């Protein structure tokens, strides 16, 4: 393990969280412009997090409540460690030789489940309702997501993310063009994963007072918000690797991830919220159907 790799390992969570938070800030700004408002500055989310970290007090309901956000960000950082971030002349692979796509699929859930456990111990019924909704929705969107990944794995006959990136050497070989069905199914799942507007049933501030984190405040909420930014970044990088041929340098990475980030954002701005079972069954209709077409095509 080279010293450069170790430096990236330490630096990447911070960079990732900053980029993710910046994206969410820009999304707030864009939403404001669409609504004919001026909107907050793009770095607003970072201010929010500094404020939350500088909160004087925090309450805890017990051990699991305390460990929930810690484990959540642990899961996210662990996921980050197994995602190849840059693949150019100065690659950032971290641990991605030691894991594959199936590992990524499962380790991504680690953080979500830990947060759900923490929220469960808060004893607030709203948290439990939020978790119940979130897991139901997850069951919905994992189906098209899994289909998309299986298409890729069967097509390239590998489950290693690095090999999938290697196969997309030119723009014409990007999976977005070579396996469009897989991409559509995956993007539909991505909408659910990002929790943007039509699928923000987990947090739904007007219904269940922000759901799982409703008892979290101060430093815990700060950690959770950091986790949110970092997790958004991780998902974006993973999708870039899988469908947009990875990234050679940071500028490409930022361009590609931001382009991906805009898709759920623009869908979210103009849509109201689904009900939980609608959201779940939505994923089993069109995205799954398109994914199945892709599955049949890849077998032929």
């Amino acid at each position, binding site marked *: 393990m080279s010293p450069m790799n170790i430096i990236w390992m330490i630096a990447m969570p911070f960079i990732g969280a900053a980029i993710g938070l910046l994206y969410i800030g820009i999304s*707030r700004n864009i939403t*404001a412009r669409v*609504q*004919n*408002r*001026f*909107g*907050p500055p793009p770095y*607003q989310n970072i*201010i*929010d997090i*500094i*404020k939350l970290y*500088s*909160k*004087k*007090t*925090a*309450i805890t309901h017990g051990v699991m409540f305390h460990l929930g956000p810690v484990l959540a960000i642990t899961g996210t950082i662990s996921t980050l460690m197994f995602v190849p971030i840059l693949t150019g002349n100065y690659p950032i692979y971290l641990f991605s030789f030691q894991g594959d796509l199936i590992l990524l699929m499962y380790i991504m859930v680690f953080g979500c489940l830990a947060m759900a456990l923490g929220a469960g111990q808060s004893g607030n019924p709203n948290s439990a309702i939020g978790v119940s909704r979130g897991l139901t929705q997850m069951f919905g969107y994992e189906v098209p997501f899994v289909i998309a990944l299986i298409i890729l794995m069967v097509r390239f006959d590998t489950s290693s993310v690095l090999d999938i990136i290697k196969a997309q050497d030119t723009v014409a070989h990007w999976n977005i063009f070579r396996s469009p069905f897989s991409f559509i199914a995956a993007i539909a799942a991505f909408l659910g994963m990002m929790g943007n507007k039509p699928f923000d049933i987990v947090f739904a*501030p*007007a219904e269940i*007072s*922000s759901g799982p*984190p*409703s*008892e*979290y*405040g*101060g430093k815990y*909420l700060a950690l959770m918000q950091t986790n949110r930014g970092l997790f958004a970044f991780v998902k974006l990088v993973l999708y870039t690797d899988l469908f947009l041929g990875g990234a050679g340098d940071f500028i490409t990475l930022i361009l590609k991830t931001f382009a991906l980030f805009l898709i759920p954002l623009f869908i979210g701005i103009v849509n109201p919220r689904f009900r939980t079972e609608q959201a779940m069954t939505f994923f089993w209709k069109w995205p799954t159907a398109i994914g199945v077409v892709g599955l049949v095509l890849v077998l032929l």
Partner: protein
Amino acid sequence: MNDDLDRQNNNIIANWARKHSLWVLAYGTGCGAIEVPPTMTSRYDAERFGITGMATPRQADVLLITGYLAIKTLKRVIRTYEQMQAPKYVIGFGSCTINGGMYWDSYNTIKRLDDYIPVDIFINGCMPRPEGVIDGFIKLQERIARGQAKGWQHYQENLDWYRANQKKVIKNWTMPDYNW
């Protein structure tokens, strides 16, 4: 303890962040709650100052008391205020919170909000228009930046006095203790 609090209050970076990120608890009391949506939405757009609504007191920084408070509501407001995480600020909204307003002789609404919870900024008017509300928020931001918005600290230090006032109107006191 006090030195620690002062150090916290005079931390420039923290105060700057607190100033630009005011999360308001969406707890509408009285008739002023109707003034908040225009303040937040397209026309007046309070979000450009970093002011956002939050659903629960654990996450919020600012408690807006938008108008008169019946005693029954006061109980809930005190509970909500105590559940918020310090540093926390209170904005009294409209003349009802200042001196009772048009409910000056009502048997069931409180007359002075600052007897019961520490108010950092009063916005007068019946009701104040969104411009007034935003002006109040900006004044609060200035106080935060100067480290003067120390209502929560005041509450902590003079808890007995506040408790006495609260217990005077809330007869059957069954609230949990405020134990910082």
